[in-house]
């Protein structure tokens, strides 16, 4: 067998894993199981990035999505869940709505992806083994995110300014995330009004006062 065909096997494995676990996320009713499938899905996507030689993107995927977001998600579920294993079952009309939205998104993404020239005509023969350039490090990306583009510096002789960095989109994304955080905090707030201060707190405070000396550190 030609060794250049080999990258196909891990790719197929990871891609199957990613797709299967993505479907499992949708079909599962248990939040924490969903989180496990989501982790498998995101980690295999990170594996696909690593396989393609995009080390930085792959590791960032692991760091932010798998390590950060999903752990926080599970942490939130554990803190907020009322019962042991919450089953989330959607009503039929919600399912239909979700299928509509997801189908529209799939169509849009698929249409966009298939319009990329060259992807349509992928030959089934052996492709060139990916050989990353030695100078491909994370440094240019990091600098570009801060607004400096080392790959296209300003040309003083021609009076050209350098290419624009990614500082603005980066900051916009942060603001977007902040808005999402504020929104989720608003959605997750306590819906029921807690009875305003009065007898409840007054009744509770003597108990805490009694408990404090006994539960204090003994050392």
């Amino acid at each position, binding site marked *: 067998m*030609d060794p250049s065909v*080999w990258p196909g096997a891990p790719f197929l494995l990871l891609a199957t894993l990613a797709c299967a676990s993505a479907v499992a996320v949708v079909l599962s009713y248990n939040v924490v*199981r969903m989180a*496990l499938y989501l982790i498998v899905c995101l980690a295999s996507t990170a594996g696909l990035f690593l396989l393609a030689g995009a080390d930085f993107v792959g*590791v960032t995927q692991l760091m932010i999505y798998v390590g950060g977001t999903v752990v926080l998600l599970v*942490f939130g579920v*554990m*803190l907020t869940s009322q019962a042991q294993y919450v089953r989330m079952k959607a009503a039929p009309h919600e399912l239909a709505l979700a299928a509509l939205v997801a189908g529209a998104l799939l169509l849009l993404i698929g249409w966009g992806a298939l319009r990329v020239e060259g992807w349509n005509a992928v030959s089934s023969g052996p492709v060139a083994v990916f050989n990353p350039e030695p100078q491909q490090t994370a440094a240019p990306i990091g600098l570009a995110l801060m607004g400096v583009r080392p790959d296209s510096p300003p040309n003083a002789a021609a009076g050209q300014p350098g290419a624009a960095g990614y500082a603005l989109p980066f900051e916009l994304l942060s603001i977007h995330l902040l808005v999402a955080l504020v929104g989720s905090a608003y959605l997750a707030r306590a819906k029921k009004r807690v009875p305003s201060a009065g007898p409840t707190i007054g009744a509770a405070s003597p108990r805490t006062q009694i408990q404090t000396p006994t539960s204090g550190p003994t050392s």
Partner: protein
Amino acid sequence: MSVARYLDQLLPAWLAELLSISLPLALLLGLMAGGALVLIWLERKVAARVQDRLGPTRVGGGFGWLQTLADGIKLLSKEDLMPGGADGLLFRAAPYVSMMAAFTAMLALPFSGSCAATAGAERLANPFVGQQLNVGLYFVLAVLGLEVFGVVLAGYSSASKWSLFGAMREAAQVVSYEVPLGFCLVVPVALAGSMDLVVIGDLQGGGFWNWNVLHDPFTFITVWVYGACATASVNRAPFDLAEAESELVAGFHTEYSGLRWSFFFMAEYGSMITVGVLGAILFFGAWHAPVPVAWGLGLPPGGWLSSIVGDTACALLCNAMGAATVLIKGLLAVVVMMWVRWTLPRLRIDQVMTTCLKYCTPLAASMFVGMVLWQALLPGRVLMGALPHAPSNQRVEEPWREASAHPETRAL
């Protein structure tokens, strides 16, 4: 890569490819399993000595060498229990998630660097590393953070209050300690100008005066913060709040028994090896001995031994010695962690959080700023600014420019 190139001459290509993939995996798995075997024995011995006992003395001779093996047989023969209310799938999956994370972190961990005499010289032997990534440190940090997920799953799926408490503590602790740990890891990255662990390690060649720990006062303090944060991130005493047997029975693994329980232990010892070796690579000269032994033996190209037996053989020998050196350094770090475990009492959960948020994070952040200022004012000096930076140690200041000037410097 070099293994693949070598095997290509002897075997059919697909077999060579398969072997070159599975060989590092087998070696690393051996390191993890064998390391756990040795470290559990060592843990017993260290604990015993700290408590003025002898520890295991009978199984397998005077020092109880085979105690861990006996433990393993006992664990294998135990009944595999699962609580009635447990979520079976998650309960079974959790130990594997933990162990997979601990093992995957080792893939990017180098055990030796390039044995080159001068900057820009051609590499004679490839570094011993499962997969050399130019974001190796970032990869290790990201994957080590995933181990918490196994613990959280175990705690959640056990249907036990003790387990859930342990898991929640673990999640809070690991998520918090990743912040100061990240600050500590940025310090050697800024010194080396690269996240490639091989580059960071090769920067510190020559002798102990080139080590990052002695680079300036700020890196010296960073090492201590790193030690505390690494201990907390692998969940060892005095930060083992997730287990805390005096409060939570056994925390997240209360409901586990037999082989599944031992997987958690293997994951813990595996990540101890990882953070130990990582600390050695980042701060304590990586695969370089405290005094230039390889140079004294004439191993680098141009040395006397090298001129007799050939450069490539010497470079391979140099790499093997480097691997032994970095493993010994990692082992020393692990022994220190054991010593700390059996010496210090466990912190309370609020003390753990105070240590992280009020002490470690500001300290690590200010050490990073201090180190950057030191580098700006006294560039290119080592040993607290006393010595000039050795020219033989490769330093990549601007990798994309450096690489175009000397393409061979960073050739994989």
